[in-house]
Protein backbone atom coordinates (compact mmCIF):
# COMPACT_ATOMS: atom_id res chain seq x y z
CA UNK A 1 0.00 0.00 0.00
CA UNK A 2 1.24 3.44 -0.88
CA UNK A 3 -0.52 6.39 0.69
CA UNK A 4 0.72 9.78 -0.40
CA UNK A 5 -1.48 12.65 0.55
CA UNK A 6 -3.91 11.79 3.35
CA UNK A 7 -6.77 11.64 0.84
CA UNK A 8 -5.22 9.07 -1.45
CA UNK A 9 -4.92 5.30 -1.18
CA UNK A 10 -3.41 3.08 -3.86
CA UNK A 11 -2.50 -0.56 -3.62
CA UNK A 12 -1.70 -3.69 -5.62
CA UNK A 13 -2.92 -6.76 -3.75
CA UNK A 14 -3.24 -10.53 -4.04
CA UNK A 15 -6.50 -10.95 -2.12
CA UNK A 16 -10.03 -10.43 -3.45
CA UNK A 17 -10.89 -6.73 -3.54
CA UNK A 18 -13.62 -5.54 -1.19
CA UNK A 19 -15.40 -2.45 -2.51
CA UNK A 20 -16.39 -1.52 1.05
CA UNK A 21 -12.74 -0.96 2.06
CA UNK A 22 -12.28 1.73 -0.60
CA UNK A 23 -15.67 3.35 -0.06
CA UNK A 24 -14.87 3.56 3.65
CA UNK A 25 -11.52 5.15 2.83
CA UNK A 26 -13.06 7.96 0.76
CA UNK A 27 -15.80 8.71 3.33
CA UNK A 28 -15.57 12.32 4.42
CA UNK A 29 -18.02 14.51 6.34
CA UNK A 30 -17.72 17.10 3.59
CA UNK A 31 -18.44 14.59 0.81
CA UNK A 32 -21.90 14.63 -0.76
CA UNK A 33 -21.04 12.12 -3.45
CA UNK A 34 -19.12 8.87 -3.76
CA UNK A 35 -18.60 7.28 -7.18
CA UNK A 36 -17.04 3.86 -7.66
CA UNK A 37 -15.95 1.74 -10.57
CA UNK A 38 -15.19 -1.99 -10.43
CA UNK A 39 -13.63 -3.82 -13.34
CA UNK A 40 -14.79 -7.42 -13.19
CA UNK A 41 -13.79 -10.62 -15.00
CA UNK A 42 -16.59 -11.50 -17.40
CA UNK A 43 -17.27 -14.91 -18.84
CA UNK A 44 -16.70 -14.15 -22.51
CA UNK A 45 -14.57 -12.22 -24.95
CA UNK A 46 -15.09 -12.10 -28.70
CA UNK A 47 -17.32 -15.17 -28.46
CA UNK A 48 -14.73 -17.18 -26.53
CA UNK A 49 -15.61 -18.66 -23.15
CA UNK A 50 -13.33 -17.04 -20.56
CA UNK A 51 -12.34 -19.14 -17.53
CA UNK A 52 -10.40 -16.51 -15.59
CA UNK A 53 -7.88 -13.70 -15.98
CA UNK A 54 -4.32 -13.88 -14.62
CA UNK A 55 -2.92 -10.49 -13.65
CA UNK A 56 0.71 -9.55 -13.24
CA UNK A 57 2.02 -6.16 -12.13
CA UNK A 58 5.26 -4.27 -11.91
CA UNK A 59 3.92 -3.55 -8.45
CA UNK A 60 6.07 -0.67 -7.15
CA UNK A 61 5.85 1.21 -10.45
CA UNK A 62 2.13 0.44 -10.73
CA UNK A 63 1.51 1.93 -7.27
CA UNK A 64 3.65 4.93 -8.19
CA UNK A 65 1.65 5.51 -11.39
CA UNK A 66 -1.65 5.02 -9.55
CA UNK A 67 -0.55 7.54 -6.95
CA UNK A 68 0.40 10.07 -9.66
CA UNK A 69 -2.99 9.40 -11.24
CA UNK A 70 -4.82 10.15 -7.97
CA UNK A 71 -2.78 13.30 -7.49
CA UNK A 72 -3.58 14.43 -11.03
CA UNK A 73 -7.27 13.80 -10.31
CA UNK A 74 -7.03 15.88 -7.13
CA UNK A 75 -5.52 18.71 -9.15
CA UNK A 76 -8.13 18.52 -11.88
CA UNK A 77 -11.25 18.16 -9.72
CA UNK A 78 -12.23 19.31 -6.22
CA UNK A 79 -12.12 15.86 -4.63
CA UNK A 80 -12.26 14.86 -0.99
CA UNK A 81 -10.47 11.52 -1.44
CA UNK A 82 -9.56 8.91 -4.03
CA UNK A 83 -8.64 5.24 -3.78
CA UNK A 84 -7.43 2.83 -6.47
CA UNK A 85 -6.71 -0.84 -5.92
CA UNK A 86 -5.62 -3.46 -8.45
CA UNK A 87 -5.52 -7.15 -7.81
CA UNK A 88 -2.85 -9.52 -9.15
CA UNK A 89 -2.92 -13.30 -9.61
CA UNK A 90 -5.97 -15.28 -10.68
CA UNK A 91 -9.20 -13.32 -10.90
CA UNK A 92 -12.25 -15.53 -11.52
CA UNK A 93 -15.54 -14.69 -13.24
CA UNK A 94 -17.48 -12.10 -11.25
CA UNK A 95 -14.48 -11.01 -9.19
CA UNK A 96 -13.03 -7.50 -9.40
CA UNK A 97 -9.55 -6.90 -10.80
CA UNK A 98 -9.69 -3.17 -10.16
CA UNK A 99 -11.67 -0.90 -7.86
CA UNK A 100 -11.74 2.89 -7.91
CA UNK A 101 -13.58 5.04 -5.35
CA UNK A 102 -13.76 8.83 -5.40
CA UNK A 103 -15.55 11.30 -3.13
CA UNK A 104 -16.37 14.98 -3.58
CA UNK A 105 -18.75 17.61 -2.26
CA UNK A 106 -20.81 17.59 -5.48
CA UNK A 107 -21.65 14.66 -7.73
CA UNK A 108 -20.15 15.84 -11.01
CA UNK A 109 -16.56 15.82 -9.74
CA UNK A 110 -16.65 12.30 -8.27
CA UNK A 111 -18.38 10.86 -11.35
CA UNK A 112 -16.03 12.49 -13.83
CA UNK A 113 -12.88 11.71 -11.88
CA UNK A 114 -13.90 8.07 -11.48
CA UNK A 115 -14.52 7.62 -15.21
CA UNK A 116 -11.28 9.42 -16.03
CA UNK A 117 -9.26 7.37 -13.56
CA UNK A 118 -10.14 3.99 -15.09
CA UNK A 119 -9.27 5.28 -18.57
CA UNK A 120 -5.93 6.60 -17.30
CA UNK A 121 -5.18 3.42 -15.39
CA UNK A 122 -5.74 1.28 -18.48
CA UNK A 123 -3.54 3.61 -20.53
CA UNK A 124 -0.61 4.12 -18.19
CA UNK A 125 -0.26 1.67 -15.28
CA UNK A 126 2.16 -1.27 -15.83
CA UNK A 127 -0.15 -4.21 -15.24
CA UNK A 128 -0.86 -7.11 -17.61
CA UNK A 129 -3.66 -9.60 -17.93
CA UNK A 130 -3.56 -12.99 -19.54
CA UNK A 131 -6.90 -14.28 -20.64
CA UNK A 132 -7.40 -17.94 -19.81
CA UNK A 133 -10.13 -19.29 -22.07
CA UNK A 134 -11.29 -22.77 -22.94
CA UNK A 135 -8.43 -24.10 -25.01
CA UNK A 136 -5.75 -21.47 -24.54
CA UNK A 137 -4.23 -18.40 -22.96
CA UNK A 138 -3.35 -15.05 -24.43
CA UNK A 139 -1.79 -11.82 -23.16
CA UNK A 140 -4.18 -8.95 -23.73
CA UNK A 141 -3.29 -5.44 -24.89
CA UNK A 142 -5.40 -2.46 -23.92
CA UNK A 143 -6.60 -0.68 -27.03
CA UNK A 144 -5.83 2.63 -25.39
CA UNK A 145 -2.49 1.72 -23.81
CA UNK A 146 -0.15 4.62 -24.32
CA UNK A 147 2.85 3.93 -22.14
CA UNK A 148 5.00 4.33 -25.27
CA UNK A 149 3.94 7.96 -25.61
CA UNK A 150 4.23 8.85 -21.95
CA UNK A 151 7.92 9.46 -21.71
CA UNK A 152 7.86 11.64 -24.83
CA UNK A 153 4.90 13.69 -23.52
CA UNK A 154 6.65 14.27 -20.18
CA UNK A 155 9.52 16.16 -21.80
Amino acid at each position, binding site marked *: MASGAKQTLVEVVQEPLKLERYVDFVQDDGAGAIATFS*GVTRDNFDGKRVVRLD*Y*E*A*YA*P*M*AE*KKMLELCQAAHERWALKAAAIA*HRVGEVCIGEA*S*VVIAVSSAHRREALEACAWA*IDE*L*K*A*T*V*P*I*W*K*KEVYEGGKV*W*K*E*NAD*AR*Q*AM*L*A*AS*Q*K
Partner: protein
Amino acid sequence: MKVNVLFFARSREIAGVSETVLELKAGATSQDLLESLLREYPLLKEITGSCVLALNQEYLAQDEAKALRDGDEVAVIPPISGG
Protein backbone atom coordinates in the same frame (compact mmCIF):
# COMPACT_ATOMS: atom_id res chain seq x y z
CA MET B 1 28.46 -1.05 -13.70
CA LYS B 2 25.56 -3.33 -12.91
CA VAL B 3 21.96 -2.73 -13.93
CA ASN B 4 19.00 -4.79 -12.71
CA VAL B 5 16.64 -5.77 -15.49
CA LEU B 6 13.04 -6.88 -14.87
CA PHE B 7 10.83 -8.75 -17.32
CA PHE B 8 7.05 -8.85 -17.23
CA ALA B 9 4.24 -10.71 -18.97
CA ARG B 10 5.25 -11.79 -22.47
CA SER B 11 8.82 -10.50 -22.14
CA ARG B 12 9.20 -12.57 -18.97
CA GLU B 13 7.93 -15.69 -20.72
CA ILE B 14 10.24 -15.16 -23.70
CA ALA B 15 13.30 -14.36 -21.58
CA GLY B 16 12.48 -17.31 -19.36
CA VAL B 17 13.40 -15.32 -16.24
CA SER B 18 11.71 -12.53 -14.34
CA GLU B 19 14.93 -10.63 -13.71
CA THR B 20 18.62 -10.54 -14.47
CA VAL B 21 21.66 -8.35 -13.86
CA LEU B 22 23.53 -6.89 -16.82
CA GLU B 23 27.14 -5.80 -16.60
CA LEU B 24 27.56 -2.65 -18.73
CA LYS B 25 30.53 -0.40 -19.29
CA ALA B 26 30.55 3.05 -17.78
CA GLY B 27 28.62 5.59 -19.84
CA ALA B 28 26.26 3.00 -21.29
CA THR B 29 22.78 4.22 -22.22
CA SER B 30 19.37 2.55 -22.26
CA GLN B 31 19.94 1.86 -25.97
CA ASP B 32 23.21 0.04 -25.18
CA LEU B 33 21.33 -1.95 -22.57
CA LEU B 34 18.68 -2.91 -25.10
CA GLU B 35 21.34 -4.17 -27.53
CA SER B 36 22.99 -6.11 -24.76
CA LEU B 37 19.63 -7.62 -23.79
CA LEU B 38 18.92 -8.71 -27.36
CA ARG B 39 22.31 -10.43 -27.57
CA GLU B 40 21.56 -12.35 -24.40
CA TYR B 41 17.85 -13.01 -25.18
CA PRO B 42 17.62 -12.93 -29.00
CA LEU B 43 14.01 -14.12 -28.96
CA LEU B 44 13.01 -10.80 -27.39
CA LYS B 45 13.48 -9.27 -30.87
CA GLU B 46 10.02 -10.39 -31.87
CA ILE B 47 8.41 -8.10 -29.28
CA THR B 48 10.80 -5.17 -28.82
CA GLY B 49 8.87 -3.17 -31.40
CA SER B 50 5.86 -3.16 -29.08
CA CYS B 51 7.76 -2.82 -25.80
CA VAL B 52 9.10 0.19 -23.97
CA LEU B 53 11.65 0.37 -21.18
CA ALA B 54 11.12 1.89 -17.77
CA LEU B 55 14.14 3.30 -15.95
CA ASN B 56 13.76 3.46 -12.17
CA GLN B 57 9.97 3.27 -12.59
CA GLU B 58 9.64 5.95 -15.24
CA TYR B 59 8.80 5.17 -18.85
CA LEU B 60 11.43 5.93 -21.49
CA ALA B 61 10.51 6.98 -24.99
CA GLN B 62 11.04 4.16 -27.45
CA ASP B 63 14.22 5.54 -29.03
CA GLU B 64 15.50 7.34 -25.96
CA ALA B 65 19.19 6.85 -25.12
CA LYS B 66 19.27 7.72 -21.43
CA ALA B 67 22.53 7.48 -19.51
CA LEU B 68 22.49 4.65 -16.96
CA ARG B 69 24.10 4.49 -13.55
CA ASP B 70 25.25 1.63 -11.41
CA GLY B 71 22.31 0.08 -9.53
CA ASP B 72 19.66 1.38 -11.92
CA GLU B 73 16.51 -0.71 -12.38
CA VAL B 74 15.30 -1.15 -15.95
CA ALA B 75 12.06 -2.95 -16.77
CA VAL B 76 10.94 -4.32 -20.12
CA ILE B 77 7.31 -3.26 -20.51
CA PRO B 78 5.15 -5.08 -23.09
CA PRO B 79 1.83 -3.46 -24.07
CA ILE B 80 -0.05 -3.00 -20.81
CA SER B 81 -3.48 -4.47 -20.17
CA GLY B 82 -4.49 -3.63 -16.62
CA GLY B 83 -7.98 -2.75 -15.55
